[in-house]
């Protein structure tokens, strides 16, 4: 793709004149799961087949949002009377609080954050109402590992609806080198009107999205991540923008935030991001990582080298070196689990 497509998707640049380019753009937007966002941005402006094609994207995201709505209803029902108010994260949060980053966004599962001391209660309620740990996590040791080293319960899948919920009690794994002050973010979270659910405050939403895209995740959906960060930043008012960097320092998300601002200003020419970057004299990440990110957004298919770098990097950020050395080269935890188990018999 070309970087300028991102701005066409958000309707900040005009539709390309060439029909062939439009067709390629549509294929790109679809493959990168941003066709629904493009449909919202172009609502009322697209004509002919373009309108039909965008409608396909819109109908799929409308479905996602109804499913999300239903799962939120079910979550509230499951926790009714417990007083626990989970904080919705990512896509679910954007959709639930009606921010622009949620419009037309695809959402496939629901991520929530609760206090560590509420975790057991939440687990009990969900298990009692038809949720079960998802396939693959089938023994006590795996469960133990999840609780000990990761930042969430294993994913729970509903036995009838087959939907997935991820319950986190920390925004990053305990093993992560980066320390994010989940407690501060939880404390500042705000309730959603009419619901027993909460969302992060807008500044924290941006910081968390940055952490998720550039530290926790491996920038797997670059077009979506960039648009998401752009909309989240756009949503902040002046006083929130002024607080963004100090808050990122406070909660320990400054590196990811700096990378996000760099990515927005370079890959999306986002003025707000660029001026924040200059104003605070932020230090970008290594050129190699920048190279990898750019490769990835430019050509997702052929950037396997870049992809590997990011994969390794995201794992590096999640685990201390001694664990990582054991883990690297596997996409899943199996071998690491066995080795840790051997090395640390008193733990199991």
């Amino acid at each position: 793709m070309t970087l300028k497509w991102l701005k066409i998707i958000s309707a900040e640049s005009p539709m390309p004149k060439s029909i062939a380019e439009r067709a390629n753009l549509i294929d790109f937007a679809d493959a990168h799961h941003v066709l629904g966002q493009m449909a919202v941005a172009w609502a009322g402006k697209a004509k002919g087949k373009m309108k039909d094609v965008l409608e396909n994207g819109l109908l799929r995201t409308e479905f996602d949002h109804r499913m999300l709505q239903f799962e939120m209803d079910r979550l509230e029902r499951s926790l009714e009377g417990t007083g626990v108010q989970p904080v919705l994260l990512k896509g679910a949060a954007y959709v639930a609080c009606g921010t622009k980053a949620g419009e037309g966004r695809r959402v496939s599962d629901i991520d929530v954050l609760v206090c560590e001391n509420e975790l057991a209660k939440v687990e009990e309620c969900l298990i009692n109402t038809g949720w079960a740990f998802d396939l693959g996590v089938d023994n006590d040791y795996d469960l133990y590992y999840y609780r000990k080293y990761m930042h969430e319960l294993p994913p729970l899948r509903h036995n009838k609806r087959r939907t997935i919920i991820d319950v986190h009690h920390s925004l990053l794994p305990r093993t992560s080198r980066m320390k994010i002050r989940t407690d501060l973010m939880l404390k500042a979270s705000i309730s959603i009107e009419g619901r027993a659910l909460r969302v992060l405050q807008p500044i924290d939403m941006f910081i968390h999205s940055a952490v998720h895209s550039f530290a926790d995740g491996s920038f797997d959906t670059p077009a979506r991540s960039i648009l998401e960060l752009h909309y989240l930043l756009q949503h902040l008012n002046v006083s929130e923008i002024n607080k963004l960097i100090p808050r990122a320092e406070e909660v320990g998300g400054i590196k990811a935030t700096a990378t996000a601002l760099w990515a927005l200003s370079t890959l999306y020419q986002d003025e707000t991001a660029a001026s924040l970057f200059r104003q605070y004299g932020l230090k970008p990440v290594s050129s190699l990582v920048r190279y990898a990110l750019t490769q990835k957004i430019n050509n997702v298919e052929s950037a396997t080298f870049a992809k590997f770098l990011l994969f390794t990097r995201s794992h590096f950020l999640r685990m201390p070196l001694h664990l990582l050395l054991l883990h690297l080269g596997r996409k899943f935890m199996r071998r690491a689990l066995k080795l840790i188990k051997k090395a640390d018999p008193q733990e199991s």
Partner: protein
Amino acid sequence: MLTKLSTYHHTELSEALLKGTVEMTLGCFSMRIKATDPTLLDFLYDAYRDVPTNLELSDVTDISLKVHAPNILRRYIRRQVIADPGFIVPAAPLPPRLSPLALEMGLNLSVALKCCRFTTFHSAVVAKEKGAILISAHSGGGKSTLASALMNDGYRLFSDEFGLMDMSDASLWAHPRPVSLKGQSIDIVKEFTGAEWITKTLTGTPKGDIAYRRVRPSDIEESSTPAFAKLILFPTFIEGASPHARELAKAESLMKLIPSSTNYHLLGEAAFKGLLKLVKGARAYEIVYGSTEDSMQMVRDLASGAGL
């Protein structure tokens, strides 16, 4: 404006296929095809001969399909083709001589999973002026053979694979691609339609022999006119069985159609309301038959009973 595919020269069609600018329109969907394989060219001339085609895109398309070797390496080592409707399909990579199958498979998947403007039922649809017959698929039900026989009985073909329902009024829309025939049904259909309407047989596919019945120019010319279903059939073919029909209650018909839809759940309330209109407006039967002749007599009777 409407240029038939057969009027293009081999070289120009082949260049446009490589560039990915071949645009074909059939009823409610337009398709953009990109392909690197020459086998596909012959198949297009054979099966899509009369289809309106452009070699430059006139607009973006409902469906965008690339039929290509899975990766560069494989293209040289052992050439294989795979259909890529813009998402990853765990479909069996097929040897190049079966690229027509990859194309048809990819187009079917694209309609089933990417086109959301219509509620899509896995079924064949044929129609006359007074209304349409929707033949719900059911493996071994023989919907393609039945649809082919009905075409020879004066019905126009909407599709042998998809019932496409407009949710506002439950009207059915046409997307008349070639009718896919498997195994014995190739000869059965050849007999009543004439060998000149059947494409070359592809042998040794993962599903045995496959051939396609070409769509008639009349089916294509009328393909933007919708029709309302008057009759819904759920056929089962049992070798040697005597023909039998059982009328279904509306709720039964609804309960059988919902699981046959690829996107009913996705489309929500509009699909439910459309489906109610569809089942209320049509008589529905479960039919069992042992030969195409048997089934045709029974279907003719049911059709006239339903006002067709």
